[in-house]
């Protein structure tokens, strides 16, 4: 179907504002991606996949400014003994980063290897993104593949205990940041990758991860608290046999956030968990769009998303479980819930199951509700004031999502950050 002329014009305007790196191992993938974007067109409100989230501010050539805040640049995972890799307004900062070295792991920067003729990431860069374009277009991810000049290329060859922490600082009020990470875990390898910070006034971050047989990747992300920032992120993961991928995202504030995940379980006996907790007040639009494809035996997937919304904040959840023919004994679970702290906030959910195998267990649920006044009164009569009681119940509501973070130290960091937010905002 031919694209509408307005879409073609808007897409061209955006592409014209940027230039492709012309040389190096990724140039072919980039040119292909550029062609994909032109063919798909950047998203517009009328696209079904963008029904609940206005994409304009994510696609426009110009960036709406977002005042950088010192507070938002504060380190969160600092206490965990991570290997920190710092990007400031989308540019790698060597001084603030740790040395990119470790046992059983190779860490490189896209900006530093982009000019090479050949690189291990060639087989993955843009490849998982391309696969993720079916059955639904994800043009912003293709745009990122084409134009991103910075990112981490991480190859894990064994068990790496030290978490790798990507820190996204924002100092400029107007930067449009694009980062493209490629992560590969060899057979039996395991690692933890963390992301935190606002990155820029607007950011577009793609992470492609290939998880080989028996490998395991933990991903925990705390997105920037800058109220004005806008973000589009894509997580692509391919799971081979007996592998595991667990991802958790905490979002507090941000004018607009669209977090997409596309997970493909293509090896038997693999496990994928995608979870998120988000809390927003006022000008806050948060969209979790998740697609999990089961294409192997005995796969297990969980999607757990909880949102706390207040003062006209909006939460969106579009989650799908696709079970391909032959993906027997699949166990899929999906829950999305919102806690609406007033009448002005809204939660829009579109849970989907599409199942082509006959011996599977799939369940999904979606609810939105107000705070339990009975419980508040009960807590009050025990001497707990309203604000504290509300915070306690809000944390309790988020607990199921938070419990998806397996590492206790990281979970504690997340919980403290939430408590901090609740004390300040509610």
């Amino acid at each position, binding site marked *: 179907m031919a694209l509408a002329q307005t879409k073609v014009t808007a897409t061209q305007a955006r592409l014209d504002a940027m230039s492709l790196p012309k040389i190096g191992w990724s140039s072919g993938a980039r040119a292909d991606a550029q062609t994909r974007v032109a063919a798909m067109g950047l998203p517009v409100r009328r696209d079904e996949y963008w029904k609940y989230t206005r994409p304009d501010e994510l696609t426009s050539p110009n960036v709406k400014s977002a005042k950088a805040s010192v507070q938002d640049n504060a380190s969160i995972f600092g206490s965990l003994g991570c290997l920190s890799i710092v990007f400031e307004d989308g540019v790698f900062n060597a001084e603030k980063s740790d040395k990119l070295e470790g046992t059983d792991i190779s860490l490189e920067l896209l900006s530093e290897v982009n000019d090479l003729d050949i690189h291990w990431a060639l087989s993955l860069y843009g490849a998982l993104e391309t696969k993720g374009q079916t059955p639904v277009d994800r043009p912003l991810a293709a745009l990122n593949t084409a134009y991103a000049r910075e990112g981490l290329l991480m190859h894990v060859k064994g068990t790496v205990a030290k978490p790798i922490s990507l820190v996204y600082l924002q100092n400029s009020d107007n930067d449009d940041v694009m980062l493209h990470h490629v992560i590969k875990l060899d057979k039996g390898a395991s690692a933890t990758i963390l992301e935190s910070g606002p990155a820029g006034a607007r950011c577009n971050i793609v992470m492609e991860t290939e998880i080989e047989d028996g490998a395991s990747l933990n991903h925990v992300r705390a997105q920037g608290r800058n109220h004005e920032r806008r973000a589009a992120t894509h997580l692509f993961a391919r799971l081979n046999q007996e592998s595991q991928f667990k991802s958790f995202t905490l979002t507090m504030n941000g004018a607009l956030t669209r977090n997409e995940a596309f997970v493909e379980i293509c090896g038997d006996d693999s496990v994928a968990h995608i979870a998120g907790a988000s809390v927003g007040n006022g000008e806050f639009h948060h969209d979790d769009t998740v697609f999990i494809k089961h294409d192997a035996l005995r796969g297990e997937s969980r999607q757990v998303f909880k949102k706390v919304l207040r003062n006209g904040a909006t939460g969106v959840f579009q989650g799908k479980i696709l079970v391909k023919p032959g993906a027997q004994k699949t166990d899929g679970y999906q829950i999305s819930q919102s806690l609406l702290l007033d009448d002005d906030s809204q939660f829009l959910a579109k849970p989907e199951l599409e199942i082509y195998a006959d011996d599977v267990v799939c369940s999904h649920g979606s609810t939105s509700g107000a705070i339990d006044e009975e419980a508040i009164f009960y807590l009050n009569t025990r001497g707990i004031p309203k604000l504290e009681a509300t915070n306690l*119940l809000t944390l309790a509501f988020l607990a199921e999502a938070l419990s998806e973070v397996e590492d206790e130290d990281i979970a504690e960091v997340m919980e403290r950050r939430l408590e901090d937010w609740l004390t300040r905002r509610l």
Partner: protein
Amino acid sequence: MLKIRNLKVSLEEEEKQILKGVDLTVEAGKVHAIMGPNGSGKSTLSYVLSGRDGYEVTDGSATLLDKDLLDMEPEERAASGLFLAFQYPVEIPGVGNMTFLRTAVNGQRKARGEEEMSAADFLKEVRAKAKILKIDADMLKRPVNVGFSGGEKKRNEILQMAMLEPKMCILDETDSGLDVDAMKLVAQGVNALRDEGRAFLVITHYQRLLDHIKPDVVHIMADGRIVKTGGPELALEVENNGYADILSEVM
């Protein structure tokens, strides 16, 4: 301790008067029981005293240790020494019983300008008190009242009471839904808390709870008023003859 004068209360939403002039004085160290038929206003009285929304006080007063209860938020009433053991304790998924107890104890201490209890002291005390009520470590860890049996919920109420050390305890049909053994256990917990500085108001339908928690004074409530006050023998009279005789006599 607790002084209620001519308390008149209506439901906020429908102009229906429930309490039609309650007068009641409870002295420190005493146990008072309130009995009465369904719909007489017993539970409403406990809710109004603890500060639940949805009721409008149209007349009268209620003071705890000479402080105006009706002017305070529920949590202020609690910090001032009032405790209500709920007829139906509320389940709170996601909030651990221990976290709840500790937040409550320290919330009250903070409100009274006292030092907060340390984690170690708290743990020691809660374990000792839980043991008396046969509350095991698992019940302390689980979310508040979630999946608790009727008896466990009521024991949990008494544990809260023991930890918060209130001055005025109101027990709203604490015996409902309990078997004899559970009731004995709850009564034991209550009796252990009886002392000179503390008073109890036990709301119940049945004499049997009062076999275990011996009251000093028994009130009969009907149609929004205390209609008769007497000694423990009044409860026996109700048990033997029902409310009809007493009511026809006074009304």
